[in-house]
């Protein structure tokens, strides 16, 4: 099985290449179908891996040496273990569903071929990122997905703000990439290798705390930028300008989770530095709380989901931070399913309401679109972590519970719990506003089977997938943690009375949130809802502050450097000065050339006298 690993990223990349070369000679529909088959084939290969090596995957495929100079050696090599298997399953399967969904969603749109090219390239990049066995190949995947997110967000490029949103996404994520690159350099300088296993062995053998601390912080910055965590989250709400299928794939299931994957993959590096994990946990918890508060005041359907993604990712970081990466991974899996579902649902809702994103002008859609309503409701249940019947009750509440008993985890638990309440509020507020209440009929829209299958599958998943791992003390299958234990170790599990108290607290928080949401939806319909709180609506004004500080400084620096250093400094002073200096010199000397004979003679005599003087002074 080892040598077939390259097929997993290979198929989507092949699709992209074919699209690039032959794209112009085929109709967009044929391109769309060809593009959709590629992730399907990858999913088949992944399924085959599950079947053959499901229990303890440890596959390795060395394709070719990428760079080898002196003792440093980085190669294009893929490695699949439990964590990677989960990630590639999500990327491939959800990727395929999105491809299927976009067949109808984007039919007849301008630049359809370009869309499928970048979608295929994205899936390929994501698979490379997750299957890479060294940091350099991870960085390749990292940047490819960044590029695809830029291109897909700016898909409808004819409007300036879409192009600007795409650029903003790429620039902000690139800040993280620079930090990640610096971390790679530090690790390279310290340990001379970038392959995971030798790197972790070397780190364990001789942990140089200062270097690892700086590297850890830089990796965290990289992850924070990619996964849109506070404070580098400002690009995610704006990148809703792209098609909803893009948001479903990139800003829900795959790319934004790359940051979490990075932290899980480089867990030994974080573990080697005392206190580093707690920092990750804090950043996760605070982001969860912060994004949830912003979510409740949004009016654009996709922005609500964008802030919800930021918040849910916060929980995953919290999971990794409290020493429970397997729980974080579990929530990543669950979140991938229901968030993709919600974004696709939102996409259909937007089409129904003729590109109008404002949820206050929507209502009562349940009669017109029953199928959409039930699948969307399943997603909302999972998002709000409704006790027992939703998947994220098993994953998110487990993380919240585990955070309580970790040393110094009380603060994290409080933030996480508040976040859970707010999550429930914005989830059900969204549902009530869009589907319940007085009916505002939109365009009749018939979803083909290409759309219904993904929604159906993901709805089932967002309900059922949680049963993989029942909370401690409950009867029922506990497969997830033991399966991941050999690689990520067992997470801290609360026991006895504390356990029950935490589970009840989690459920009660969700129920309170749902009640508040019902009232919030009514206020919103009467016009005095939560959206009028400007502080929350503008996400604590972070975006505006960031945009007013950094870009202007950057452009001003460019202008200053250009005008003062280059034009004034080099051109004027240095070259101009030289030129004028020579000009002046020659003008002075020219005055001695005005044709007057006696002045020439005086030049000679003066020369003789000066020479005699020098000779007299020097020689005698």
């Amino acid at each position: 099985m080892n040598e077939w690993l390259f097929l997993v990223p290979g198929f989507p990349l092949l699709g992209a290449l074919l699209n690039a070369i032959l794209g112009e000679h085929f109709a967009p529909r044929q391109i769309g179908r060809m593009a959709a088959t590629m992730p399907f084939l990858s999913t088949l290969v992944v399924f085959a891996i599950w079947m053959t090596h499901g229990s303890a995957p440890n596959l390795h495929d060395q394709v070719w040496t990428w760079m080898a100079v002196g003792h440093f050696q980085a190669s294009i090599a893929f490695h699949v273990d439990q964590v990677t298997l989960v990630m590639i399953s999500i990327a491939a399967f959800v990727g395929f569903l999105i491809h299927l969904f976009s067949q109808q969603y984007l039919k007849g749109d301008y630049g359809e071929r370009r869309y499928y090219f970048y979608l295929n390239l994205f899936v390929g990049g994501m698979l490379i990122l997750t299957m890479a066995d060294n940091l350099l190949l991870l960085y390749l995947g990292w940047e490819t997905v960044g590029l695809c997110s830029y291109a897909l967000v700016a898909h409808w490029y004819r409007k300036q703000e879409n192009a600007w949103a795409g650029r903003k996404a790429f620039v902000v994520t690139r800040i993280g990439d620079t930090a990640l690159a610096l971390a790679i350099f530090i690790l390279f300088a310290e340990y001379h290798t970038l392959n995971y296993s030798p790197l972790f062995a070397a780190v364990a053998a001789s942990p140089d705390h200062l270097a690892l601390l700086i590297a850890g912080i830089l990796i965290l910055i990289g992850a924070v930028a990619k996964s849109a965590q506070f404070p580098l989250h400002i690009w995610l709400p704006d990148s809703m300008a792209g098609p909803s299928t893009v948001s479903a794939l990139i800003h829900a299931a795959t790319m934004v989770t790359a940051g979490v994957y990075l932290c899980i993959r480089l867990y030994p590096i974080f573990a080697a530095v005392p206190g580093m994990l707690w920092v990750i946990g804090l950043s996760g918890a605070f982001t969860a709380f912060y994004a949830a508060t912003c979510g409740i005041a949004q009016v654009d359907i996709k922005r609500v989901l964008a802030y919800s993604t930021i918040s849910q990712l916060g929980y995953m970081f919290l999971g990794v931070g409290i020493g429970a990466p397997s729980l974080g991974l579990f929530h990543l899996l669950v979140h991938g399913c229901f968030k993709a579902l919600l974004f696709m649902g939102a996409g259909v809702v937007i089409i129904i309401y003729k590109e109008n994103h404002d949820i206050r002008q929507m209502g009562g859609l349940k009669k017109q679109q029953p199928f959409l309503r039930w699948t969307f409701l399943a997603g909302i249940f999972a998002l709000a972590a409704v006790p027992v019947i939703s998947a994220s009750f098993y994953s998110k509440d487990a993380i919240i519970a585990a955070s309580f008993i970790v040393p110094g985890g009380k603060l994290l638990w409080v933030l996480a719990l508040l976040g859970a309440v707010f999550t429930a509020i914005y989830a059900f507020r969204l549902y009530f506003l869009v589907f319940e209440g007085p009916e505002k009929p939109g365009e009749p829209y018939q979803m083909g089977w290409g759309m219904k299958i993904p929604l159906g599958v993901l709805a089932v998943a967002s309900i059922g997938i949680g049963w993989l791992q029942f909370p401690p003390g409950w009867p029922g299958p506990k497969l997830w943690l033991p399966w991941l234990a050999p690689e990520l170790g067992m997470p801290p599990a609360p026991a006895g009375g504390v356990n029950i108290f935490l589970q009840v607290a989690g459920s009660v928080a969700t129920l309170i949130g749902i009640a508040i949401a019902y009232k919030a939806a009514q206020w919103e319909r009467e016009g005095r809802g939560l959206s009028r709180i400007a502080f929350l609506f503008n996400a604590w004004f972070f975006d505006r502050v960031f945009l007013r500080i950094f870009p202007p400084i950057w452009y001003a620096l460019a202008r200053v450097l250009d005008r003062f250093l280059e034009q004034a400094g080099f051109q004027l002073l240095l070259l101009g000065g030289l030129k004028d200096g020579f000009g002046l010199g020659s003008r002075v000397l020219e005055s001695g050339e005005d044709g007057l004979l006696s002045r020439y003679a005086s030049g000679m005599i003066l020369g003789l006298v000066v020479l005699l003087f020098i000779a007299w002074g020097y020689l005698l």
Partner: protein
Amino acid sequence: MTLELTLVIAALLFVVGVALILLRRNLIFLLLGIELLFNAAMVIALAGGARWHSATGQVLVVFMMALSGAALALTLALLLRVKHELGGDSVDDLRLLREEVDE
């Protein structure tokens, strides 16, 4: 004693010659200045001859006379043409070749 005296005379001749060249505006006087310089050289040569009691000093003087005469003759011929064609014999008439500083 006589050596220093002759040198003083030569120096005087030299200074007068230089003064003539630098200060006078008429070309004739420039030529006169050069002639004086030559004379200074001849005086020094004679002093040398006297000092070393050898005739080469005089030989040197004779050569200098011949050559300076030849040079001056030609310059005077040119001076004639300059007076005829450039219309004047003062230094200011020779301003045709100059650096156009104003451009």
